[in-house]
């Protein structure tokens, strides 16, 4: 079955991507300064203590040996235990991921819900008040760093008016502000793209002739134009979703959410090799999966690309 062949091929590619990234990261984090054993040992420990910890962690072995060992355990779906906390990496990741995923999904949803309708209306009614409003919104969204927006939103809606909690996690109310601060910047990008892409579609000959022919035809063509215009929007939204997972780090920091981003950031700061590697494989896999789905969507919508 060709469909399966296609998916297998793409999946193979996905695995290759993940392997490539994780391999690069594997070596990079070992080359850069910093040592998990030194972090565990702290200031007062002796060199011997550090060496003992290193031996226990296995970071005293040659990199190639460590790499092979790691590859073997990953093949068995075992990411090992965190070097700093001793907890299984898989368990930690699975505990954190839902939070980040919720955040990113809500963020991109908010972004798209704001951006696409506004972008389409802006393109159809260019230079109308709606268009200006959309432009203003997108400019603000792009210009304001998300951490900044987050702090302002917190001040407004958690300090001045007690609508949302200041920190913590749990119910949906904890996610509204974070995903809004995360989504607005993405909305800006999607909005601009939707508008530009829609404007271009609308300027194409077939739409112009359609316009001349009357309303019904025009509606049909708008539908057509919209479909074409959404192709790049979907690709970019997919990529944007990726950015969201990353941008979530900072937002998780601001809103004290225990997400994957913060886990990973701590991992990097502490040089928790096993955690970083597990995180890289996981995040890269999720990401590539998103890209993979975006690609399929993209080629379904735009047959021209497929042939090439």
């Amino acid at each position, binding site marked *: 079955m*060709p*469909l399966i*062949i*296609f998916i297998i*091929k793409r999946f193979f590619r996905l695995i290759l991507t993940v392997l490539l990234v994780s391999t690069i990261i594997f070596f990079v984090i070992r080359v850069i300064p910093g040592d998990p054993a030194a972090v565990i040992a702290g200031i007062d420990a002796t060199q011997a203590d550090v060496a003992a910890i290193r031996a226990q962690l296995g970071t005293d072995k040659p990199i190639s040996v460590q790499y092979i060992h790691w590859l073997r355990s990953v093949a068995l779906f075992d990411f090992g235990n965190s070097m700093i906390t001793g907890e299984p990496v898989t368990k930690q990741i699975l505990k954190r991921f839902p939070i980040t995923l919720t955040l990113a999904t809500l963020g991109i949803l908010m972004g798209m819900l704001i951006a696409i309708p506004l972008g389409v209306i802006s393109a159809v009614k260019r230079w109308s008040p709606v268009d200006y409003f959309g432009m203003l919104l997108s400019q603000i969204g792009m210009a304001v760093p998300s951490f900044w927006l987050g702090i302002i939103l917190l001040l407004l809606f958690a300090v001045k008016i007690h609508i949302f909690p200041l920190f913590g996690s749990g119910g949906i109310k904890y996610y509204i502000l974070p995903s809004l601060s995360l989504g607005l910047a993405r909305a800006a990008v999607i909005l601009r793209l939707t508008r530009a892409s829609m404007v271009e579609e609308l300027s194409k*000959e077939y739409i112009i002739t359609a316009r001349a022919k009357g309303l019904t035809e025009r509606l049909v063509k708008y539908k057509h134009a919209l479909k074409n215009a959404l192709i790049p929007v979907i690709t970019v939204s997919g990529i944007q979703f990726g950015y969201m997972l990353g941008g979530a780090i900072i937002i998780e920091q601001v809103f004290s959410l225990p997400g994957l981003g913060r886990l990973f950031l701590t991992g990097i700061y502490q040089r928790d090799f096993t955690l970083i590697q597990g995180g890289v494989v996981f995040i890269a896999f999720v990401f590539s999966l998103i890209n993979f789905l975006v690609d399929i969507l993209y*080629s379904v919508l735009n*047959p021209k690309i*497929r*042939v090439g």
Partner: protein
Amino acid sequence: MSKSVDSALEVKNLTKVFHGHSFFRGKQETSAAGKKETGDGDFTAVDRVSFTVKHNTIFGLVGESGCGKTTLARSILFLDPPTSGDVIIDGTNLKNLTHRNLRLFRKRMQIIFQDPNSALNPKLSIKRSLEEGLRNQKYSSGKITGRIDRLLDLVGIPVSCKNKYPHEFSGGQKQRMVIARALSLEPEFLVLDEPVSNLDVSIQAQIINLLMDLKKQFSLTYLFISHDLNLVSYLSDEVAVMYRGRIVEQGPVLAIMENPLHPYTKKLLLSIPGNIEKIKNRENAEIFLTGKKPGKDVELFSLTGCSYYNECPVREDFCLKEEPSLRIVGIGHLIACSNDKYLKNQLLYKS
């Protein structure tokens, strides 16, 4: 111009297969009439096509859209080299040319596309579009300017427009520019791929006339590709009819028009308004236009015999046995049909 060989173009057994993910391609092509699936996601878009075009003549290629005409045209020009088979232009087998020599050879064969709107780079002024080929041939700047002016003049575009951009012109004007560009390199052989089908009817005639004038003036050879049998028959010296990547009938224009033999050719001919009335009295024409003989249809991918089987009004079981090859039925008249009884009847009827 040296004419060492009799024919301007010789196509021998040209086959073009596309490889790819059938998941996508399959979905895309099922509506198209011309491609054959050969498994593993490969598609034979053009299947063992052979024909010869004589110098200074027009060879018409007819078929419904998607039957492989454009693929054939691109293969002939080696824009997308054929999977197998030969293309011999004025004695030169394109297959034997090196990459570089092929580029140099290209000035002798040019193509005019269906859609003048996409045939001109929107970012280039008319002048720059016309310069491109000339620069490839290392013309001096002075010479280029002179030539561009002459070319524009030739196709009836005011020279003063040459610094304008494509979007400032109408479709007909654009097509004139495309023609001018194709002629800039003084080719001997031109492929016209539906050159007027995207234009308004009133402008079509102008462009056709222009093409005819130019042919006379520069003794050009045309391969005229169209879905419009009427137009093709009006212009061409010889005609070939294509169906699903294969030539099913081929011959001098008179033979085809007066005595179409293949059921598909008949169908095309009958589709031309007015023709039904003309032929009606002579035979039961409608069955070729609409009818199809009762019987079980065959799934396209398992079709081994005649590719027209599913639509054929005169099909027989043996048509599925093997693919009919072209055979001679008259002077220069070839047809791919296995139904001898039917053919005999047709020929008898005619005499």
